[in-house]
């Protein structure tokens, strides 16, 4: 990937939260500090005009990464470089403004992310006014009307309030607001998980159309692998704050290498294959307060050995993917079963 194609580069990003009891209580009870390891040394790059997806189960740190990139959550260590500037280093809102204009966000819950007391026109115009791109007047009204039409609403909707819209329409309003400042990059945190499938299809189609027409770059956070398979060019699989596998989405979904990715893909219920016997992922994700030593996945991994419990695997390149797994490195990964193979066969080319 040529350097000038990279719009976002995340380098050894680490985010930790202090969940300790208050100091006095710790002194009295002798309890230690409790640190939540939300994100640990995550590296990835996003190419301009593409969609990079982060997937994983709840608590794996994917939303924390989204919030850090959007500038809502400061990183503990590492850097986030957006259009060549380290946005994590900004000390004031003012300094960050030119970059914020290019980086917008769509949230999961369209009922919580729109101000219920504001009319739609004001909600959509807010980023334009905040970034002083236009002054209030007829031109601004026309721009809002144009944005509403872009997302499939009518210009007359500008006078309505959020409660007059359904969930899918509200998510369209969120998208119109995100587009208002002409951003290059949109962070989409679970944009369709609060929606019904037929509405989800409408929103995903709209997002793809906008990406084609406006050259947008998306960072898509999702737990839904089918959505990710439909949208992503590149993909990062997270487990307990770390990226265990990342690379070309078609390769990872078609020929998953990391044992966690394989098991995750196996457990997804497939509406087109009723009664399929799925291998089961036993156990649960350990607490990020006390991540296991070595590879974080080793307590649940069928291939774990003594080395996995001791030593943290480093990412190694396999084809178009980077995989952090000793079993992959040592080539003791079993071949894909016929069922897993059949997942990969038919045209995964986009």
């Amino acid at each position, binding site marked *: 990937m040529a350097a000038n194609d990279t719009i976002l580069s995340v380098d050894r990003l680490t985010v930790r939260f202090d969940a300790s009891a208050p100091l006095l209580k710790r002194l009295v009870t002798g309890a230690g500090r409790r640190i939540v390891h939300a994100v640990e040394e995550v590296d990835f790059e996003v190419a301009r005009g593409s969609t990079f997806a982060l997937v994983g*189960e*709840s608590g794996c740190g994917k939303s924390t990464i989204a919030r850090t990139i959007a500038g809502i959550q400061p990183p503990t260590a590492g850097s986030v470089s957006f259009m060549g500037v380290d946005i994590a280093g900004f000390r004031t809102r003012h300094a960050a403004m030119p970059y914020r204009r290019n980086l917008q966000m769509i949230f999961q819950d369209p009922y919580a992310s729109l101000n219920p007391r504001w009319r739609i026109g004001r909600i959509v115009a807010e980023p334009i006014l905040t970034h002083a791109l236009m002054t209030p007047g007829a031109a601004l009204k026309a721009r809002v009307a144009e944005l509403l039409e872009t997302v499939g609403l009518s210009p007359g909707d500008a006078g309505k309030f959020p409660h007059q819209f*359904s*969930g*899918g329409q509200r998510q369209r309003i969120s998208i119109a607001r995100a587009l208002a400042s002409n951003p290059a990059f949109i962070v989409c945190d679970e944009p369709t998980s609060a929606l*019904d*499938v*037929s*509405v*989800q*299809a*409408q929103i*995903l*189609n709209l997002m*793809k159309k906008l990406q084609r027409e406006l050259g947008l770059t998306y960072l898509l956070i999702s*737990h839904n*692998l*089918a*959505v990710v*398979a*439909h949208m992503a060019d590149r993909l990062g699989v997270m487990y307990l704050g770390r990226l265990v596998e990342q690379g070309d989405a*078609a390769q990872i*979904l078609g020929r998953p290498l990391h044992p966690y990715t394989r*098991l*995750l*893909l196996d*457990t*997804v*219920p*497939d*509406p*087109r*294959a*009723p*009664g*399929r016997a*799925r291998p*089961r*992922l*036993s156990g*649960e*994700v350990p607490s990020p307060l006390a991540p296991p030593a070595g590879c974080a996945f080793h307590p649940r991994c069928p291939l774990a050995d003594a080395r996995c419990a001791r030593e943290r695997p480093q990412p190694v390149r396999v084809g178009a993917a980077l995989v952090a797994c000793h079993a992959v490195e040592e080539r003791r990964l079993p071949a894909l079963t016929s069922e897993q193979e059949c*997942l*990969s*066969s*038919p*045209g*995964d*080319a*986009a």
Partner: protein
Amino acid sequence: MTALLSVQGLRVEIAARHRVLTAIDDVSFDIAEGEILGVVGESGAGKSVTGTAVLGLLERPAYQAGGRIIFAGRRIDTLDEDAMRTLRSRQIAAVFQDPLTSLDPLMTIGDQLVETMQTHLDLARAAALARAEQLLAEVGIPAPRERLQSYPHEMSGGMRQRVVLALAFCCEPRLIIADEPTTALDVSIQAQILDLLRRMCRERGTAVMLVTHDMGVIAEASDRVAVMYAGRLVEIGPTRDLIAAAAHPYTRGLMASIPDMHRRAAELTQIPGSMPRPDAPVPGCAFHPRCPQALARCATDRPAMLPQGASQVACWLVDAASRSAA
């Protein structure tokens, strides 16, 4: 085989300020012993209201305005509150979406199980405790004896949902109404919980009404599927038939709008528009304004349930097809 649960012509209305809204409009279905019936539909389709009506838990302003609910040969929608409560505890159990709201945060897991069993079964405390421990082991909770002392907040979401299942199974019910039991859980935990539900049904012959919006869950767990739209049943039939060849245009659209993990399309099929709201009902077939194949009569006449293979479908297209074949 006679049905364990038979819902006949169920109609639920909601009294709004100036008028009456119809939430459930003439819905009929049966569930046999040991069968898992999936009830699927989008938000507002009436699937949860149907489950609530079967449980006799409809609250004002919603009320049952017509139809009959027959459980084990006895009509239950006319029972009084006390008789219904006894029935709910012993014979019909419920599992809801959020395990945290179904459990008492101030009672240990063990006390909740023991209390439930002692209320409804004639058991001494020691015997109830032993049974509680055995139930926790059956639903796959590690170290069940120690866990009896735990409070709900000390457990993860998946573990809590297992406890809710143990509570549902503790009085050996004949029917479980499970409303989105895995929606709040991650996929790997979801798979474990669905397995558990299915295994318990096979072993005990319990029937399940599985309410969900997730076609994947339906495909995975149910024997038959009922598809609801705008308070009506549009299609009901064996899961395999319905997934392989859905007859109703709505079911077909719903299936096509789910992104396929294995075959990436340039664009997803979408159903234009949205479901009519109960305050703006549609005459004729409720789906006709969004239906790509709507006929003239779809806008005026409401289709009855018509047989199509092993399924039943409420669609005039099926009627037209069978007529032209005859």
